[in-house]
């Protein structure tokens, strides 16, 4: 039996709910509990200092706390070693790191890169730039009418021996949960290096990067109760060892001489300059929080809310839902309403303090594919309760009244 948790109790950890908002935009960025901001404040007020070059106790304390997050994250995603856990600003920086440090070295003229049409811009544009620089080709796996990746087409593309396969574990625009394990296995068999964009994965379900089998896995702390400014790139050690640094400067070196420079060991080779220390410590507290809830319980809760919302929205006339059925999607629902632009809907919802996203969700190729400019999107997290979904339904009905 899956452990459950008490949402009302959880909400007490999030002071922002005292403002009365219904927050339905967690796929964009999550809220942060007191435990996370508290950990940051503790650093600022008790042992604020720079790390790694410590010569005094508060800097030792900061270093220990900062490095402790690495072990927490390693455990969360079951990496083999903390050397495989690299701090970044977020998913975007993680993917760019791979594009620069791995991609510029390994992707050559005529190589094939396989992406998917539902990917987030952050997992498209870096590869477009790399492909243009190197003369490589990009192919995008299409979706079927349910918003699920066309596996037949994916397998066909693998026959062309792509150098790189990169795709999102879960679509932030449609909520589609891709069969990542099978896709990675097939891509590895085809000889590709595989990056999984876990921005919508790691925050919402248990992740085991070794079982997943990918070479790189990138995600953002700010989408999983952590502060802005800190995220994670997981990379398999062999690949990371063989890669050149991305950014360079203080702290990622062993020795700097006029004649040349030697680099630090993993993971620090990829962490140049003063890092987001408070934010990494905050991320550690976020991982603790999620771990205490249990990732299976997180997923179960989101699934319950998603099913509830899916049903409630399905009942509304003139509303089109995009993407797969609730059993095959994460806590994300994209929809549109006949005759009402998503932005107008969001404005009307906002007047009821319902925070709803409207736009292309950084997935313009998908929007083009769906033939829409924008959708409205509601997304859920550990603190979401049914009452917030009810408020959304109320706002939609209000919008329909206005635009009738």
């Amino acid at each position: 039996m899956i452990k459950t948790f008490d949402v009302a109790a959880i909400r007490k950890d999030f002071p922002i709910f005292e403002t009365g908002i219904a927050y339905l935009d967690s796929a964009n960025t999550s809220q942060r509990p007191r435990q996370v901001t508290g950990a940051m404040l503790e650093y600022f007020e008790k042992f604020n200092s720079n790390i790694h070059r410590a010569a005094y106790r508060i800097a030792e304390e900061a270093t220990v706390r900062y490095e402790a997050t690495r072990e927490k994250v390693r455990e969360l995603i079951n990496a083999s070693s903390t050397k495989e856990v690299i701090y970044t600003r977020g998913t975007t920086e993680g993917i760019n790191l791979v594009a620069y440090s791995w991609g510029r070295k390994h992707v050559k003229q005529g190589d094939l890169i396989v992406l998917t049409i539902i990917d987030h811009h952050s997992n498209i544009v870096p590869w477009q730039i790399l492909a243009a620089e190197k003369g490589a080709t990009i192919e995008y796996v299409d979706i079927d009418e349910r918003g699920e990746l066309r596996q037949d087409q994916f397998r066909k593309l693998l026959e062309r021996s792509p150098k790189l396969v990169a795709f999102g574990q879960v679509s932030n625009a449609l909520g589609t949960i891709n069969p990542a394990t099978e896709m990675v296995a097939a891509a590895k068999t085809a000889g590709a290096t595989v990056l999984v964009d876990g921005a919508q994965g790691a925050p919402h379900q248990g992740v085991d990067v070794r079982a997943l089998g990918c070479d790189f896995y990138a995600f953002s702390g700010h989408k999983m109760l952590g502060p802005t400014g800190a995220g994670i790139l997981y990379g398999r050690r062999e690949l990371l060892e063989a890669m050149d640094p991305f950014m360079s400067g203080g702290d990622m070196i062993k020795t700097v001489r006029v004649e040349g420079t030697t680099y630090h060991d993993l993971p620090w080779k990829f962490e140049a300059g003063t890092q987001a220390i408070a934010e990494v410590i905050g991320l550690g507290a976020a991982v603790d929080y999620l771990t205490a809830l249990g990732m299976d319980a997180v997923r179960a809760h989101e699934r319950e809310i998603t099913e509830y919302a899916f049903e409630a929205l399905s009942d509304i006339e003139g509303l089109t839902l995009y993407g797969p059925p609730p059993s095959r999607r994460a806590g994300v629902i994209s929809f549109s309403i006949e005759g009402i632009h998503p932005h107008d809907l969001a404005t009307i919802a906002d007047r009821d303090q319902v925070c709803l996203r409207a736009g292309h969700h950084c997935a313009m190729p998908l929007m083009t594919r769906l033939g829409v400019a924008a959708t409205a999107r509601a997304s859920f997290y550990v603190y979401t309760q049914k009452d917030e979904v009810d408020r959304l339904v109320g706002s939609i009905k209000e919008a329909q009244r206005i635009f009738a």
Partner: protein
Amino acid sequence: MSSTAADDQFYREYILDHYKNPRNFGRLENPDISHEEDNPLCGDVIGMDFRVKDGVIEDIRFHGRGCAISQASASLLTERLKGLRLEDAKKIGKADVLGELGIDISPARIKCALLSLKVLKVGAYGLAGNDEDEE
């Protein structure tokens, strides 16, 4: 959820009217000027076609998709532009467009309200798209 269409402070009757029945909507054949701009934050696109004779905007049409604010704003702007000298059109500024809309526009929606003005500025008298007016 207490307001009704009639007394809504934001989505007033005339805004909704321009949205549902946009004036000068469509395309011109062989326009003298034709230009499109998009709102990078939402993907909405508005384009305008102009027929200009002796420096006067003889005819104008707009096309594209967008929210009530951008559509109503475009519709209102074309009404104003039709028959105007291009020279005078240059004088139309943000304040005019927002004034004509007559509602309080929040920062998030200001780009919607001004998208059609951008089409006019960039298309009809060639201002750079990335000038200080943006955000």
